[in-house]
């Protein structure tokens, strides 16, 4: 089992939910959070900083603002992890900084509390 933790733009949540349902992945958990990424919007600045220019790095360091984001968590069987990731990317990609990040974490076990089912049986997507 894999947990897909995606941090996305606030205004993309409805599109993402729709896209996931269309792909057959219906169960999810969402919550609000605040976050920051590399702390910039300028692509050239980023490039400069990556190449190690002091000037660019010092400009990146100034921002400290946290931006409102939505975090969604979905636990899926191993074989659906790649599909889920590509659905989320397709629904959220604008190509600009701030589109978000997706983390894929291993999950040891899952339990459905109502019935006590374990492992893949406890997940909605087979």
């Amino acid at each position: 089992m894999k947990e897909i933790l995606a941090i996305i733009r606030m205004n993309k949540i409805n599109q993402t939910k729709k896209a996931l349902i269309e792909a057959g992945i219906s169960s999810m958990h969402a919550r609000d959070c605040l976050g920051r990424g590399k702390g910039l919007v300028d692509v050239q600045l980023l490039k400069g900083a990556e190449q190690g220019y002091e000037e660019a790095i010092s400009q990146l360091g100034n921002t400290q603002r946290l931006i409102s984001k939505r975090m969604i968590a979905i636990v899926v069987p191993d074989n659906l992890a790649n599909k889920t990731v590509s659905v989320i990317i397709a629904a959220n990609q604008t190509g600009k900084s701030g589109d978000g990040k997706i983390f894929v974490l291993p999950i040891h076990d899952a339990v459905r509390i109502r019935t006590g089912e374990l492992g893949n049986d406890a997940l909605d997507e087979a």
Partner: protein
Amino acid sequence: MLMIRAIVRPEKVDVILEQLMSEGFPAVTKMNVSGRGKQRGIKIGDITYDELPKELLMLVVPDADKDLVIGLIMGAARTGDRGSYGDGKIFVSSVDEVYTVSSGIRETNAGTQEVSL
């Protein structure tokens, strides 16, 4: 890659974020949470507070940076000289893959590659 989740005092968040930023870890996600620890909350008179407000900081770092980041958070989150109850906890878990939505770049322990949908 490793995910570091730190549950810290709300008033310490600014210091920690500043520390992380200055050491080159700008990317952080912050959430409001409430919780209790093994002291079972705080008892003041007859009233027990067992849902104490805390902040959850989440960041994903390369394996090699784990100790540095944990050291930074721990140094900034402690109250007093030796720390005190309620300063929080740090959890570390493994992350298989990291995708950047805007560029579609996939990062794993093995390296970075661009993926097509």
